[in-house]
């Protein structure tokens, strides 16, 4: 007697027996479900992979990995994770544990993605615990009223659970936490040894991450009343110049919003909101504007240091993720107390959660302590507000930005040693700018402001301890004060009705693509490049989705009429629109939209049917993710969630530091064969999409690649012609010539854009091109429809 699969969940049990041979008899494909899963099964047929284990989708992963093979670029020849010491893995050597360099590199990628998935899932767990305590386990999930039937497409696809209450989300989290534990354990010495298997687990971490993000966002939308899939969510202020510096200012940083909600609630309940300014950076700022449009966003995470040093914040409240580890040190310089509010980021501060608000406020205002750890969001609200109001008149916006004379005096100490430039991620010409500043000319310093990512590595290496980041901030003082823009508050999910409206045009290719700009602010040449890319593709009638820091960067550039992209373009999920879904955890709605196209538009079964849905998306939905300033491990896991769905991701040049690309080889014809689901024949589908994970060197390259990666084997001739028009047009503009791979993307003469017919045909003639069939593409043999055979 042997068991193929037993899946036992904490609150529900599902038992699948492929074959049981006992003295009673032979039993095949026996399934027993008890609890919630059975209840859901009544509503919709359950697919083959409910709560998949770390190997259940391995075959699908290998299909993708055979096509998009990893290209590794290690940071180091060594592995130094165990007490064997450092093992040299160069030139094909294996470490003391037997691991080779490629496996070690993929192991590091898996560690990064586990960190990312754990961060989002841990975020979700803390949020759910908090919301259940406040609103109860039976609080309903509602993220779009009657406009949304499928509240949690990612979670339903992965776990088979269709959550209707906050309590249901706990079941999903139980599964996700189990998987993260297994994945991380696979990175232990003496476990997984094959790089492709590590990569498969990377994909699994990404899938888990997408579900974790979804749980977090649908919970907070439902409980806090954030915009519910609202294309007309409020336009809110963004930019340092939007902050009313006359008022006491509370600066919030991080990702997990309950403490910030506590602040807004306290202000509202006590009639103080007109007296205090609440502003933030990073995703907590996104989420607080979803709760209160009166709150303001300062900017992406790279604005953190410059904003603190400006002296504007009177109190700094930090929660979790992407917060500078030296925020306490920096806040101390300006005399602003810090309130840490997350168990994940205690900053060495004393836990004052059980102390009275009076005591904590007194200690913070008097300067007796420089900060406090408060793990009660409501208490954070009271303490932050009262402290800000009492300390503001004392601080008088004390700042650590030098005045002009001081700056010039300090700049004259510079020895032009180049250490700052050599530490700068963007190789900025800092010594030249300091040299000019020493002579009283701040123009070059001010110019660095746009490209500076705010890491302050320049200061840390300066042998003369020059406060270079503060110099740049001073030089750009006027620019900073004028930073005042509009961003549309995060709308949350995409409505089912929107999917029905545009699903067809997307799948047929008539809307040329869905382009999602997500991620951090580690840009090679400033955030303006994000805004440029967004504007270019919105103008070309792609659907543009934004989230996180990228959504903020897009807002911080105005057109000739002084308007941001969110003021110019509609917030609908439609051609030519620019819609901000919200914070990091709102990224799940982007994956959710792709899944809903397969489920709602194409009527593919959703529940526990990952492989089929991913196959559909990969071959038919022209979606591309761009993370131009990707920096974090979370960005890595977000990307890997898209990879498993077959959605390509482009990163900026700094993204090459993820140390592994997933690259297709368009010159290997055999890699691009698909099954034609109508006949079962294997046919050439073309290199579409050509890559799964790709770092571009310049924004021009990224734009051309974006247009190319939106092509899918399923495109109709009309759709392909539209996509080719964009690809060829952008290529001609930026490269000054036609692309050299057009023959791979023209399947029929009718694919050729009418206005480009002559020049394209000339090329095709030179390359002995012949027309080929347009398949009904799938990578899954079981999807082949033969006469009399069901799918």
């Amino acid at each position: 007697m042997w068991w193929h699969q037993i899946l036992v969940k904490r609150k529900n049990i599902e038992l699948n027996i492929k074959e049981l041979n006992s003295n009673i008899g032979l039993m095949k494909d026996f399934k027993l479900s008890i609890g919630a899963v059975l209840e859901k099964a009544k509503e919709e047929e359950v697919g083959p992979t409910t709560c998949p284990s770390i190997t259940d989708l391995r075959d699908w992963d290998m299909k993708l990995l055979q096509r998009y093979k990893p290209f590794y670029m290690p940071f180091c020849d060594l592995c130094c994770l165990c007490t064997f010491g450092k093992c040299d893995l160069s030139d094909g050597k294996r470490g003391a544990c037997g691991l080779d360099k490629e496996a070690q590199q993929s192991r590091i990628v898996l560690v990064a993605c586990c960190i990312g998935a754990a961060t989002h899932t841990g975020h979700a767990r803390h949020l759910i615990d908090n919301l259940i305590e406040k609103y109860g386990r039976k609080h309903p999930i509602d993220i779009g009223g009657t406009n949304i039937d499928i509240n949690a497409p990612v979670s339903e696809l992965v776990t088979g659970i269709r959550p209707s209450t906050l309590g249901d989300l706990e079941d999903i989290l139980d599964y996700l936490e189990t998987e993260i534990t297994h994945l991380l354990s696979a990175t232990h010495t003496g476990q997984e040894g094959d790089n492709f298997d590590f990569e498969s687990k990377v994909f699994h971490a990404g899938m888990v991450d997408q579900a974790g993000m979804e749980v977090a966002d649908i919970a907070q939308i439902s409980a806090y009343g954030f915009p519910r899939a609202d294309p007309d969510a409020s336009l809110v202020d963004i930019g340092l110049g939007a902050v009313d510096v006359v008022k006491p200012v509370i600066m919030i940083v991080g990702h997990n919003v309950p403490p910030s909600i506590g602040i807004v609630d306290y202000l509202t309940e006590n009639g103080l909101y007109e007296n205090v300014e609440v502003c933030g950076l990073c995703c907590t700022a996104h989420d607080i504007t979803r709760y209160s449009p009166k709150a303001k966003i300062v900017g992406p995470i790279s604005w953190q240091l410059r904003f603190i040093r400006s002296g504007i914040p009177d109190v700094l409240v930090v929660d979790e993720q992407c917060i500078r580890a030296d925020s306490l040190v920096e806040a101390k310089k300006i005399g602003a107390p810090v309130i840490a509010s997350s168990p994940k980021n205690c900053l060495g501060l004393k836990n004052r959660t059980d102390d009275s608000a009076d005591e904590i406020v007194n200690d913070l205002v008097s300067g007796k302590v420089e900060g406090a750890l408060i793990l009660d969001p409501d208490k954070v609200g009271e303490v932050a507000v009262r402290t800000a109001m009492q300390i503001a008149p004392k601080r008088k916006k004390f700042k650590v930005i030098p005045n002009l004379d001081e700056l010039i005096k300090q700049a004259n100490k510079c020895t032009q040693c180049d250490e700052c430039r050599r530490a700068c991620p963007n190789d900025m010409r800092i010594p030249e700018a300091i040299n000019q500043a020493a002579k009283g000319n701040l123009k070059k310093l001010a110019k660095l402001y746009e490209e500076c990512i705010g890491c302050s590595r320049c200061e840390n290496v300066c042998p003369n301890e020059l406060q270079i980041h503060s110099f740049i901030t001073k030089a750009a003082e006027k620019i900073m004060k004028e930073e005042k823009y509009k961003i549309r508050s995060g709308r949350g999910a995409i409505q089912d009705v929107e999917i029905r409206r545009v699903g067809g045009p997307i799948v047929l290719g008539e809307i040329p693509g869905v382009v999602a700009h997500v991620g951090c602010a580690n840009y090679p040449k400033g955030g303006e490049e994000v805004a440029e890319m967004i504007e270019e593709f919105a103008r070309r009638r792609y659907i543009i989705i934004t989230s996180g820091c990228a959504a903020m960067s897009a807002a911080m550039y105005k057109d000739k009429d002084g308007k941001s992209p969110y003021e110019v373009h509609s917030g609908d999920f439609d051609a030519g629109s620019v819609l901000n879904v919200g914070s990091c955890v709102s990224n799940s709605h982007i994956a959710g939209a792709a899944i809903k196209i397969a489920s709602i538009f194409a009527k593919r079964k959703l529940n526990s049917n990952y492989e089929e849905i991913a196959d559909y998306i990969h071959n038919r939905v022209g979606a591309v993710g761009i993370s131009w300033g990707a920096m974090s491990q979370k960005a890595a896991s977000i990307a890997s969630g898209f990879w498993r769905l077959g959605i390509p991701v482009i990163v900026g040049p700094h993204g090459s530091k993820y140390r592994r690309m997933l690259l297709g080889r368009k010159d290997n014809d055999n890699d691009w064969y698909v099954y034609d689901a109508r006949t079962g024949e294997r046919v050439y589908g073309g290199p579409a999409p050509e890559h799964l994970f790709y770092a571009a060197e310049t924004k021009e390259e990224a734009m051309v690649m974006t247009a190319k990666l939106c092509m899918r084997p399923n495109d109709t001739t009309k759709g392909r012609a539209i996509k080719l028009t964009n690809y060829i047009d952008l290529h001609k503009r930026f490269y000054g010539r036609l692309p050299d791979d057009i023959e791979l993307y023209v399947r029929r003469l009718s694919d050729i854009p009418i206005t480009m017919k002559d020049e394209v045909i000339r090329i095709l003639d030179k390359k002995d091109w012949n027309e080929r069939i347009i398949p009904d593409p799938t990578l899954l043999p079981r999807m082949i429809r033969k006469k009399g055979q069901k799918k």
Partner: protein
Amino acid sequence: MSYSPWQKAEVPGTKRGIPLQRPEVLSAILKKSKRPILIVGHKSVEMAIKDKKLIDYLIDLAKTSRIPIIATAHIIKEFSNRDFENVTSMPVMDIANRLKDPDWKGLDNLGPYDLALFAGLPYYMEWLILSGLKDSKSLKTISIDGFFQPNASWSTPNISSSKLGDFLDDLIRKLGVN
């Protein structure tokens, strides 16, 4: 001259490239190579050397040594603007991925390259790509843009732009003479 990585924290592991201090050495390596290729990144258009740009030196190098050029990112347009057409456009990730493959037959289908020269890429990107290629048995790599790349087989040290100009002038002269 300095042989530490230009971005100082970018230290590699056990294998470190050899600094190219004299153009004669590079000239000899190039002459010995049977299948060299030159990969030129977008920064070659931005990097000023004396009264020219790095890309101008690289075009002269390619003309003199008849090394085929791959222009990465979008800069093939810049070669056309300089009336130099013996160049192929390819994303740097694609060319790196192909160079890693010992079975790749090259742009002309005549066989794999044995020597890849790099110049004008963002420092960290070139660092990583060279790291990805450094264990190749059949390919040697050289960085020639004046920022020391420890993952290359050979690399110019960290030198000023004018010294790099002198180095490249000398190299081109030597290759031209022979």
